[in-house]
């Protein structure tokens, strides 16, 4: 997942990084094909070099030391709303075929949820305002659902020009990277683009809660290079974030 996520970052891009796997994907991208990418962190940090050590949160002292800008959340969110942020990473508990994400609550009544999730954080802002959204999630039939219980972070809504009609200025998910596969969004809907090595399309179909649509050129996800695996293991030697496979 991390290796594929890193490939989604282009050189020179301004990326809302977030935590966990995306943070490591940013490190990999910076050290391989995207040395000029810039990382933005919503608590008010801009970095053109990854932190010197593994981060558990974006507010850890090592993520502040060596930053080029330490500002306010509103300053970073302003850049996002202006359209100055190329891409952003986001995860979620549930996602549907149109890329709408739920990180708020499971169950029909948000006031009496069956599972209370932490909430949006800055995720819904990134999903609303970044030029491109990169989604990373564990692949599970209960997570990739026909319909999510609550739309925390808008994807393509009901499809078509739903975002424009709703007033969103730009953006939407470009890719969904799971533990089993990579989906691209075509006309506002997720299409299976590649399956990870050793994972069959059949298994992906079984593990996906919506009727799977498959790209004509569906192929195996490119394996991470030895260099990429080394960078990941160097950065997270104990596998704190990458334990569940990279």
């Amino acid at each position, binding site marked *: 997942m991390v290796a594929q996520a890193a490939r989604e970052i282009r050189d020179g891009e301004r990326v809302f990084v977030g935590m966990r796997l995306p943070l490591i994907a940013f490190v990999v991208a910076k050290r391989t094909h995207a040395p000029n990418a810039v990382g933005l962190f919503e608590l008010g940090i801009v970095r053109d070099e990854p932190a010197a050590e593994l981060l558990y949160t974006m507010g850890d002292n090592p993520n*502040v030391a060596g930053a080029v800008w*330490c500002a306010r959340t509103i300053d970073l969110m302003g850049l*996002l709303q202006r359209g100055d942020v190329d891409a952003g990473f986001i995860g979620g508990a549930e996602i549907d075929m149109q890329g709408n994400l739920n990180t708020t609550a499971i169950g029909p009544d948000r006031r009496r949820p069956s599972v209370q999730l*932490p*909430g*949006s954080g800055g995720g819904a*802002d990134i999903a609303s305002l970044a030029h491109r959204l990169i989604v990373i999630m564990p692949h599970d039939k209960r997570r990739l659902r026909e319909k999510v219980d609550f739309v925390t972070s808008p994807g393509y809504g009901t499809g078509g020009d739903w975002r424009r009609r709703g007033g969103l200025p730009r953006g939407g998910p470009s890719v969904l990277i799971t533990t089993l596969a990579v989906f691209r969004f075509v006309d506002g809907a997720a299409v299976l683009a590649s399956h990870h090595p050793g994972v069959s399309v059949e298994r992906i179909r079984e593990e996906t809660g919506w009727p799977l649509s498959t790209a004509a050129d569906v192929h195996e996800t490119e394996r991470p290079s030895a260099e990429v695996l080394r960078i990941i293991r160097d950065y997270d030697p104990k596998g704190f974030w990458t334990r569940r496979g990279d």
Partner: protein
Amino acid sequence: MTSKLLSLRDAVGRLVRDGHSVALGCALEPAIPFAFAHEVIRQRRQDLHLVGPISDIAFDQLIGAGCVARVSAAWVGNVSAGLAHAYRRAMEQGIPRRIEVRDHSNFTVAQALLAGALGAPYLPTRTLLGSDIPRANGTFRESTDPFSGDKLLLVPAIVPDVAVVAVQRADEDGNAHLWGPWGVSQEAALAARSVIVLADEIVDRSVIATDPNRTIVPATKVAAVVHEPGACHPSPLQGRYRRDHAFFHEYHRATRDVEGFDAWIEEWVTGVADRSAYLAKLGPRWTALRDTGRPAAEARF
């Protein structure tokens, strides 16, 4: 210059009332005033309205202890360990009580507090158009931009009764220096009716005046200054101490059920008299977190 120095016990006793809206954890992951949250729990405040973007586990502790009636936040959880058990119990089972949640995103919390700081009634934005958050929040309004005709969301100002900011240093009058990420701390402090400053170090006014750009909140807004070293543990304070990652994970494991939560609160909050006792209980684990950082390049005024 007046001195506003108070003990944390007196500051909470005099300035925090049942039912107050309280903004804290406004720098996001760092500089969270856990010492303040623990004193509020010890003094059994009730029906508080918590305001903040992401609170890591401070909101979870206040909710589990029964101090909270309402939360206006973008995220309530345990940043490096996962879900917040006490928050889940309150929302899913009403244990120890039902709470009302006004869902936000980090941007809308920032805009609501900035509007409060500016004395503006609301801020207009394009974020969350299409999200279910505005409906769940209930305080926003959809609107049309009179200049362009575009759809907008209007985020009303939040004016907290009390904002709590933890800083590296402050003078006795309340002029406070914070460095590292500010998050929404300054907006919260300027928006609030009263501000409590928790300072890792108390310095002379002349020290503050050597570098007025570092002042996050001026004394004119501050009601109480508390000298509380280590006030943010287990969250970090830039250049002073690092984040105690393991502590967040231990809390996560220990508070999976109500009994575990109550035992944790007894051990770390109600069972200790104050912050210095808490730090003494941490012992060498606390001293090992010290971080002296590297000096900022010189700037001359």
